Structure formats: structure tokens, C-alpha cells
């Protein structure tokens, strides 16, 4: 096993985490094939390169000498085909890599829903390094842009464009922002903040068609209601799907929307594993979660899990307590446990918002048992370890509120938000009691 040749397709967070942990635990020969870039970079940081906060080299988490030092061979190439019977990966540059174990970690691609004009110059999604480079070129000298979406990537795009003083009109299909995930209170808070940053949001508005100008570039979009919005750029941020089109030729590996795996991240072909965004579980180990998870953190966990399996400790993917975070312009968001966009059966809630309108905390629990279910936090940093422990230990919401100071993670001298949260929670409890 220590002489295994392990080939990892994809050098994103999943593939690289797998490579690093395999190296920590074994002497296997590791090769990582990456198509976007020679070295691993933080995909979530691409927006900062466009905004001028960092250069591309700054978003590479490891110095270039790291890979050789840790004997992780990098191959900057595209895979054209996998032959699982010969255990061989063919690369587009004509080379081939033989493997004993193969990990597929090819991430996502932007969704395109077949809108007329979606391939015009100046229309694009945002996922890859190449997308950011394209965005740099596509937004040069333009005055206004339209973004179609309503999730995390669309708000990133809006923020990026606003740093260049480009007017942004944001088309959201639902009647609130990120309506599939955020409760209305939070969606409204973020909506207000985006408007403060000059973003024009249009809810229940859908894209019908992208219109070309005389130069062949995008000139405007037309909405389903027939309105025409002139713009020099269209950002399509309507979600992503597993990047597996390239795999269809290697018909032996079963796919549906993503590469199908069991809870051990094993595909139907022995010695072939899949991790990260490109994975679709037959049945997710956590019934609360979807079978396709496209999150930085889950990709990292899958990478670590598969590394254990490949180094002799067969492990099931067990992501534990759900957590996530994001930043909407200036407002940070963290979530632990489950706060759904609408209360589930038997749930009740407490939503507290600071008078500044930018800081908020949303607690959800079971009305009867008072068991704590989850928290959404805006502009108030919370300690991951503490909430993780509380959720594992099934504490009550009263325990959470009483001990909230233990979870506060804001910098020194900051207003102690937990005091206001506690006061409002207790006041409401008294009223209802």
C-alpha cells in the first residue's frame, strides 16, 4: 500500500486535502492533475483578486516549493479519458498516468439554462480562474451590468462589480434574496445592505433572453415580463452542477447528476473514488443534507476522509454538525446547525436584530423539548467549537442563550452582542410565558 500510485484528478480544495493527508499518512506516490492552474489556489478568494485586495499568488495557500518538498507531483493538464480496466488516465497532452487508486475531484461548472444569447461575449458565470480572467476582460470600460441569480456567487459578483463603480441590476427569481436558504428576516437584512451598496435588486424577475448589439457583444437583457435592461455585462450565477461531462466517455464509472458514490466515497468501480463538488451520494449519510454538496468545507472533509481510506483506515464520510459561512459585502454570516428558510414542524424561533440593521442572530429550536436546532448569525462572530459541542450534546435553547458569551468571537472592545440577544430573548420568553 505504501507504494501505491495514487492519481487525483482535480487540484481544488478536495483533491489537495486528500493529497496532503495521504502524504501525512503514507509514502504513496501521489500525482495531482489540475486543469485550471499549475498550483492549488483558494477558489473562494478569486473575487479578491478581481477587487484588487490580493494578487493571484496571494491566494495560493502554499508556496510553490511545498509540493516538491512533500513529494506531491503536479500535472497541469486535462484528462481526456479514464480506462478503468487498464487503470490508466489519459491526458490531453498525450501522456498517460497509471494508477492503483484514483480519486475524482473535479468540482463544479456554472449552470446555464439555455437562455437565448447566453454564450454572447460579455455573458458568463463565475467559478474558475479562467472565469475571473474573462470577467476582467468583459467588464473593462463598461458602465452597467445585470446579474442573474440570488445566491452566494451572485452577491460576490455584485460586490466585485461595485468596486469598479459599475451599476448593477440584480435579477432574483424568488421574492426574497437566497430564498431557498435564508429566512425572510435575514434575506431582508442582506437586501437592505446590498441596496446600501448601490445594487438594484429586482425580485420575482426572470431572464428571458440576452440581446446582442451591433458589435456582437451583449447589449441588454430582456426579462420575462418583457422589460429590456441595457447592460455591458451579464453575470449568470444560477448555481453550479458537478463537472463530469468529461467523464461520460469513461462509461464504466456510474454517474447521475454527479459521480455516484456510497458513504465511503467509493464509486461503482473498485479503486476509484470521488470527492467534493462533483460527487452525488446514492444516499447522503446525513439525511438532513442533499445528495450533492457544493461547499468548501465539505470538500475538505471528503478529502480527509478518502485519505484515511486510502491509507488503510476505511472511513465513512461523516460531516457532523452542519456549518457554513459567507460574507455579503461588509456583513459576515455564520451558521451552525439547521436554520431553514421556513420553520419546520414543531420548531419555534427567536430573531434578534441590532438597531444598526446589520447585526442579527436567529435561533431555532423545538418548541416542546426546547432542544436547540441551529443559529444564523450576521455581523456577530461565533465560536465554531462551542456551537459544535452544544449541537452534539443536544442542549436546550435556554442553555445556548445563557452561555452565549462563551461563543462570542468578536474582537476586543466590540459591543457585546450576546447581552442584547439575551435581553431580547428573556423579554420575549416572559411575554409568551
Amino acid at each position: 500500500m505504501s507504494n501505491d500510485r495514487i492519481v487525483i484528478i482535480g487540484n481544488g480544495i478536495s483533491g489537495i486535502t486528500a493529497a496532503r493527508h495521504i502524504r501525512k499518512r503514507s509514502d504513496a506516490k501521489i500525482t495531482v492533475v489540475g486543469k485550471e492552474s499549475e498550483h492549488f489556489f483558494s477558489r473562494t478568494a478569486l473575487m479578491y483578486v478581481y477587487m484588487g485586495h490580493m494578487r493571484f499568488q496571494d491566494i495560493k495557500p502554499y508556496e510553490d516549493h511545498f509540493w516538491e518538498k512533500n513529494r506531491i507531483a503536479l500535472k497541469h493538464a486535462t484528462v481526456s479519458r479514464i480506462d478503468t480496466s487498464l487503470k490508466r488516465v489519459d491526458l490531453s497532452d498525450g501522456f498517460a498516468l497509471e494508477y492503483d487508486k484514483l480519486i475524482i475531484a473535479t468540482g463544479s461548472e456554472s449552470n446555464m439554462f439555455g437562455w437565448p444569447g447566453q454564450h454572447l461575449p460579455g455573458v458568463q458565470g463565475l467559478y474558475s480562474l479562467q472565469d475571473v480572467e474573462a470577467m476582467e476582460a468583459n467588464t473593462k470600460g463598461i458602465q452597467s451590468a445585470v446579474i442573474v441569480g440570488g445566491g452566494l456567487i451572485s452577491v460576490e459578483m455584485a460586490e466585485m462589480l461595485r468596486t469598479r463603480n459599475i451599476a448593477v441590476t440584480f435579477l432574483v427569481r424568488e421574492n426574497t434574496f437566497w430564498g431557498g436558504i435564508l429566512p425572510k428576516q435575514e434575506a431582508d437584512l442582506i437586501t437592505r445592505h446590498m441596496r446600501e451598496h448601490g445594487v438594484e435588486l429586482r425580485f420575482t424577475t426572470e431572464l428571458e433572453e440576452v440581446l446582442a448589439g451591433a458589435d456582437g457583444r451583449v447589449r441588454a437583457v430582456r426579462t420575462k415580463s418583457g422589460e429590456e435592461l441595457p447592460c455591458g455585462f451579464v453575470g449568470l450565477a444560477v448555481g453550479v452542477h458537478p463537472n463530469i461531462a468529461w467523464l461520460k466517455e469513461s462509461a464504466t464509472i456510474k454517474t447521475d447528476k454527479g459521480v455516484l458514490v456510497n458513504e465511503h466515497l467509493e464509486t461503482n468501480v473498485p479503486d476509484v473514488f470521488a470527492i467534493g463538488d462533483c460527487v452525488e451520494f446514492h444516499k447522503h449519510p446525513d439525511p438532513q443534507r442533499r445528495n450533492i454538496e457544493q461547499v468548501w468545507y465539505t470538500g475538505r472533509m471528503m478529502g480527509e476522509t478518502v485519505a484515511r481510506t486510502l491509507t488503510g483506515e476505511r472511513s465513512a464520510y461523516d460531516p457532523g454538525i452542519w456549518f457554513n459561512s459567507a460574507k455579503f459585502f461588509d456583513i459576515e454570516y455564520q451558521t451552525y446547525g439547521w436554520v431553514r428558510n421556513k420553520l419546520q414542524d414543531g420548531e419555534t424561533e427567536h430573531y434578534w436584530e441590532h438597531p444598526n440593521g446589520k447585526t442579527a442572530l436567529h435561533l431555532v429550536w423545538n418548541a416542546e423539548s426546547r432542544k436547540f436546532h441551529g443559529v444564523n448569525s450576521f455581523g456577530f462572530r461565533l465560536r465554531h467549537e462551542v456551537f459544535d459541542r452544544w449541537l452534539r450534546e443536544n442542549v436546550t435553547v435556554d442553555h445556548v442563550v445563557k452561555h452565549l458569551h462563551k461563543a462570542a468571537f468578536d474582537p476586543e472592545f466590540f459591543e457585546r452582542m450576546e447581552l442584547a440577544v439575551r435581553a431580547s430573548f428573556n423579554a420575549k420568553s416572559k411575554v409568551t410565558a
Partner: protein
Amino acid sequence: MSHSDHSLSIAAPHSGTLDGPQKATLALAALGVLALLVSLPMDTIPHAGLWLTGALLAIVVGVLGYAWRSYAHHPAGIKNNGVWHSSLTSRGAMALVVGVLLTGFYVVLYFYPQYLGLAAEGKAKTGIIALFNPLSMLLSGNPASQWFVYGTLYTVAILSMGTKFILKYRHNKYEVVRTLSVMFFQLGFAFLIPELLARLSLPYNDFKNMWPLNYSFFDDWNVKGLLDAGGFGLFMLLFGVAMIFLISPILTYFYGKRWYCSWVCGCGGLAETAGDPFRQLSDKSEKAWKVERWVIHSVLVFAVVMTAALIYSYLGGDSAKGFWLTRGMLLGIIVLVLGGVGAVLLIRPGMVKELNNKVRYGAIAILAAIIGFTAYAYITGGSDIFFVESYPLRKTYGFAIGAIFSGVVGVGFYPLMGSRVWCRFGCPMAAVLGMQQRFFSRFRITTNGGQCISCGNCSTYCEMGIDVRSYAQRGENIVRSSCVGCGICAAVCPRGVLKLENGPSPLNPLSGSARGLVSGRVSSDPIAIGKTGATLR
């Protein structure tokens, strides 16, 4: 910091061009600088008081107006848009120009003060020094010197750029309080109090500026001056000694070296305010870290050796000058201090284990050499310790470290190497406090579970060149001797991962882990990333 470059040393907060009010306020500041420069070739300055007031006001109002226009009308939050697109803040042509001007200013200040109007002894000063006369007369009752000009400009820089910084980080109370602190210490302790002391005919003293940063503290003339100034002079001398050996270790134990480096110190104050637009230029490579450790500790050794040699030479033999401290006693103190360090290492072997071999042997070699030299000097009774004449040594230190390193390179290279070149590579005070912070402090930067996305904002904006991300993405606390606790890594983190904390004592065996003095502080609890017991490390 020269005001001739003040208007230029401001990063455009947004990509693209400046708007009308921004241009106007910058022009006003530039006009103020020009008004100062015009005085350079003049022998006498008509209406100097009015002129100076007008010029400084124009600079301050210009900078504040620019900052107001740039930040106040945008929602509070991180303002790093376009930092790497702007020529000034990304080592472009503008940066080179500003670097050359700043460097030139320091060269003139240190080596050619006659161009600033410094005249021969007894003759009236001219040029910009004469321009500052009214203010100097007002404060201390003495005519201005080139150092008064420098001190005034330095203070104006910290105050105006500090206000700009506060506007920029107004959403972050830690940054606001910390910046008010450096502004207060610069204005009060570095600028006003010494001038008032002069008015009272007391020796110059900047209470917060301690040895070894203040390398002339133990100079013959300074010690004599303090001793000759009666009870208050003696107090200043004792306070200076207490700062080094008592107050600073205690404060560093509780709060880390930040209490000094980013809250009090003047060099730090300038770096955090006027230098803020350049913090991202520090080198984050492992290689730079290696160089840093060698260079800064070499400067510390240089400072200690130079000072010991100096004191040794001007002290007489036993009771020779009728002064209580004698050479024999000094040697005794040196041996005692070194013995103390040795004893600590024996009591806390865990600390030694954390050092790598090169460092360990280097430290042992230096200790052995100093003890050897000391013993030799004691036996032979010569007036020089370490076989070198102390005054040339002192002069070399003043030139190479005091002027070139801390001034010309330290500030002159802001636009090229970042704002903390001196603090990171050169400052012996930072080296001393850094060792205390690394081994004996409750201060650490904690990371928040598994929330890191490895984006790199923390590392990029670390002015000390610490690769913060390399710790954060492993869920490891950051305990680095060079960290000045400016808090910017925590501020720019988009996922709320970093927090500056004064945690439980590393000296308390119950609080940390039993593995060693520091490990309990460095390795936090396993990260919650899913499977119980699975960690990111």
C-alpha cells in the same frame, strides 16, 4: 516621515480615478507641503508663525478631507479595493518615486542637515528649521533644530494619517482604540512632554522609548544628564531601567508585545498610520522569515554588546569616579542576568526543545562568548570589554542601525517592502519583546474551528509578513514572536476566523497542555470538521 510625500502616501480606496473633492483635498495637502519646501533656501522667514500654521493646517485639513471623502460616504467595512491595482500601493512607479523621496529625506535629515537650514554653532538657523522656530519657542522656549522639525512632521503624520486610519476602520473598535492610543503616545510622550521638560530645564526624555530601541539611553551623557538633574532626573533613569526589566515583561506577559509595538511605540505608530497603505508589501515567504530571525537577533546582540561595552568603558574601576556602579558590579550584573536566563532554561527544558538546533547552538555560543569576554575583561582590568573600543562601536551602531536601518530603510522603504521593515528585521526592542511573547505570554491569536477558507487576506495584510493563513487553515493558534497584535488579520478575515486573545497563562501547568510551555497555547482543541476526533492537522 517626510511631509513632502504625505499627499502621495495615500492609497486610493477604490480602483479608478479620484473624484473632484478627492483631487481638491489632495491638492490642498500638496500645497501645504510646498509651503514648507519653499522655505528651504531662505535665510530668514517672514511671518514664520503664520506661515508654518498655514502650511501644517493645509496638510492636516487636506489629508482629513481626503479621508473623509474616501471613506465616510461608503458603508463601514474593509476598504482594500484596488490596493493591488494602484501604482503607489503595489510597488509601481509611484511607489518608487515616493520611496526615493522618503529615502532622500532621511539621508538629508541624518547626514546633510545643513540643507534643512542647520547653521554652524552660534549662527542663526535658516530654511525650514527657522520656519519651525516659532512653534519650538512656544513649546520649549528654545530655537528649533532639525530634530524638532522631524518630530513635528512625524507627529503631524501620525495624527492626520491616524485619523484617516480611524475613518477607514471605524467599524472596528479595536483598531479605533489602538490608533487613538498611538496618537496619544506620539503627541504626549514623544512630542509634548520632552519639549515641556526642556522648558523646565530638565533633560530630554521620552518615557515610553526604552532601551534597546532607545540605544542612547545608557550613553555617558544621558546617564550623567539624568543624574545631574536631581530627584526627577533620577526618577527618569530608574523609570527607564524599570521599563526594560520590570514593566515591559509584565505587560508583555499579560497582553503580548502589542501593548508596546502597536499601541505605544512611535515607530509602530508611524507604521500603523502613515504606513498602513503599504502593509501588504511585506514578504510572506518562509525564506524571509529565516532572514528575519537572523537579522533581528543579530541587531539585538549588537545592541547589547555595544551598550555593555559602553557602560563598561565609562564606569571607572572600583569607586574610581565615586559612582556607586562600578565595572566589577556591572560584570556581576551581566553574569547574573545570563545566569537567570540559564536557570529559566533549566527549569523549563520544554522551551529549549522547541528551538531548533541551529538556534540552540547559536544562543549557547553567544552566551559563552559574552561570559568569556566578561571574565577576560575582569581579570585583565582593561577599559574595553569584547576587545573593541566602545565609542567607535557606539558610533557604528548609531550610524548603521539608528540612522540607516531604522530611518532610511525603515521608513524610506515603506512603499517597497512594507511598513514594518525596521520592526520586523531590525528593532532590538521587538526582538526582546518577541522572545517574551513567544515563551512567556498569555497572548495568542486563536482560530475559529473549521471556518477558514484559506483565502489569504490575513497573510496578505500582515505587515510583519507572518503567513497567518498557514496556521489558520490548520486550526492552529498563532503564537509568533514577531506578531505586533495590530489586529488587521482578524479584521480582514471574511469568515470570522481569527481573534486576538489573552488566554490562560502559559506558565500555569493546569491551563495548558503538559507537553511544554507553549504547545498548549499553540495547538488548540481538535477542529470540529465532522467526524468526531477527526482533525484538520
